[in-house]
């Protein structure tokens, strides 16, 4: 879900510059790369047994691979003709400065890391780590409030899910 900012033409973002135009071809590369990957992986699927008179498990993957490659070509054509993807705007989004890579990668690492920690330190602790790390990465500097919120929210959520709703979440190997 995004925030779609209606009736605010200025929110559609600055015109993409030339360099941003080249990075659009990255999407073409992604689509084409995935197409080739699906093609290669599909070779591993055997279609011998019992599939003669119906749909072999290879047909749809081959179709998807071809679709990815065709769409990659069409997109390359569109970009070459000057087409640009419209960056998503929104009320909390400021497109006038570039991507903050350290925030992006920091958050991705944080989510991935917290997920791996769940079976080890339990859901409440891993959730609190994720919550606290996110507030700090997003620039909140009220240390005490951040800490309290980061501990209370995961704990409350944990008890609601495990006690009231009967959904299992690990508490850790302590």
């Amino acid at each position, binding site marked *: 879900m995004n925030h779609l900012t209606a009736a605010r033409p200025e929110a559609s973002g600055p015109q993409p510059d030339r360099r941003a135009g080249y990075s659009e071809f990255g999407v073409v590369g992604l689509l084409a790369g995935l197409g080739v990957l699906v093609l290669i992986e599909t070779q591993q699927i055997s279609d011998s047994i019992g599939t003669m008179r119906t749909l072999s498990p290879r047909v749809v993957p081959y179709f998807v691979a071809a679709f990815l490659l065709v769409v990659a070509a069409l997109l390359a054509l569109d970009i070459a003709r000057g*087409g640009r993807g419209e960056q998503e705007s929104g009320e909390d989004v400021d497109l006038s400065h570039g991507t903050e890579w350290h925030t992006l990668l920091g958050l991705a690492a944080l*989510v991935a890391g917290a997920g791996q920690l769940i079976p080890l330190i339990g*859901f409440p602790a891993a959730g609190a780590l994720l919550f606290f790390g996110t507030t700090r*990465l997003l620039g909140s500097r009220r240390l005490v409030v951040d800490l309290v919120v980061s501990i209370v929210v995961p704990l409350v959520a944990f008890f609601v899910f495990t006690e009231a*709703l009967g*959904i*299992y*979440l690990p508490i850790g190997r302590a």
Partner: protein
Amino acid sequence: MDSISALLDGFAAAAQPENLMWAFVGVMLGTFVGVLPGIGPAMTLALLLPLTYSLDPAPALILFAGIYYGGMYGGSTTSILLNAPGESSSVMTAIEGNKMARAGRGAQALATAAIGSFVAGTIATVLLIFTAPAMASFAVSLKAQDYFAITLISFVAVSTVLGSSPVRGLAALALGLMLGLVGIDALTGQQRLTFGVDSLSTGIDTVVVAVGLFAVGEALWIAAHLRQTPAEVIPSGRPWMSGEDWKRSWPAWLRGTALGFPFCALPAGGAEVPTFLSYSLEKKLTRHPEEFGHGAIEGVAGPEAANNASAAGTLVTLLALGIPTTATAAIMLSAFQRYDLQPGPLLFENTPDVVWALLASLLIGNLMLLVLNLPLAPLWAKLLRLPRPYLYAGILFFSILGSYSVNQNPTDILVLVALGLLGFVMRRYGLPVVPTVIGVILGPTSEGKLRQALQVSNGDWSTLWGTGFSIAMYVVIAGLLGLAVVRAVAAKRSSPAISVDEHVHM
């Protein structure tokens, strides 16, 4: 009528105190999460789906229905007071609604949205109750190749009709179809695209896909471009309307309902087109053209009614055909499948008690929303001021909660992050997310129907265009693709004007 007695039984089930409580919880939670800026109904559903995991089918679907309607209601509050529509179907509400709020008429905008949602939701749910069984009994006569054609039409419609660039819509669909392939082939039991990873062999769970692309992708995208100045929330009191407002609103509600329901009852539905049509229609018919663009109440009443009516319309195709046409419907489908309920022609025959309790609780939930939310609106508005670091921390936290509780598997969280990064890239380069979600969920269905059709015909592909219905579907698909080509060529020639397409790419 059969439907009426079945519905009364449904009401009896839904009115049990326990089920009423679940409807209440769903409505409150749905509104609460839906009001949060940037969270639309689909993301609300995806984030709250885990709540239902341990419940029985009927209470779970009742809770879910409440969340759905609540999430839609919450989204309109956000659109009006913050100009931040959470989903493309609220864009039209935001245009005039936010102008009204700026002109000090926020209370009236909220009132016409809330009452209009109730009126449209109620009428459309009643229509749903009468059309869905009829459509289901028609659908019984459809063959596998017809269903296959219907899935194709959904793919083409969702990726080329909406959004500013059909090519990017198709690219998003291709990504979704690819993700949908991951897992064990149903016929031969072979692994496809799993790269030897064990936990991928059961496929990527719908919740992980939806939460990853919507919630994590959105949080990452916004976090990397976070505006440093706080967003402007327009204060507004308790919703109310004057007699004049009522007089201007009710025809718009009815017209919006009339546009919204039929559009979304088609397999190629989606709320964007009817809300846009409703807005243009109200603009044409109004006696106060000077107010449009400065906060005209009809411009809120019509699209908001169309939006809610289309929500019920979407359920017609979901319940009667088992085909989701929007992201929200796709997530609802996965909720059904968790309980081994297969939406489709036989749903009404096999599990009438669950379906009718669900339909009855849609009506009850709708009434609850109106009664609760008119007085609670100022409270919900306070949520819009939630500091952004906590908002996005909360979204990420509930994302891992939901995704982890599906399979209790840390690998799912890695998949979640990968999908979140994909969602980020898609937002950066203008690829819409909805076709991907539809591709993941409907792709395997489509393959299954194709396989079924070929089994019956002993592998003869000409069976695919062997029925009149399927031929009609292919004609429509050809028309949609032709339209997309025309648009792609035209977009090149004229510089993009401000149109609904510009903003519709969720």
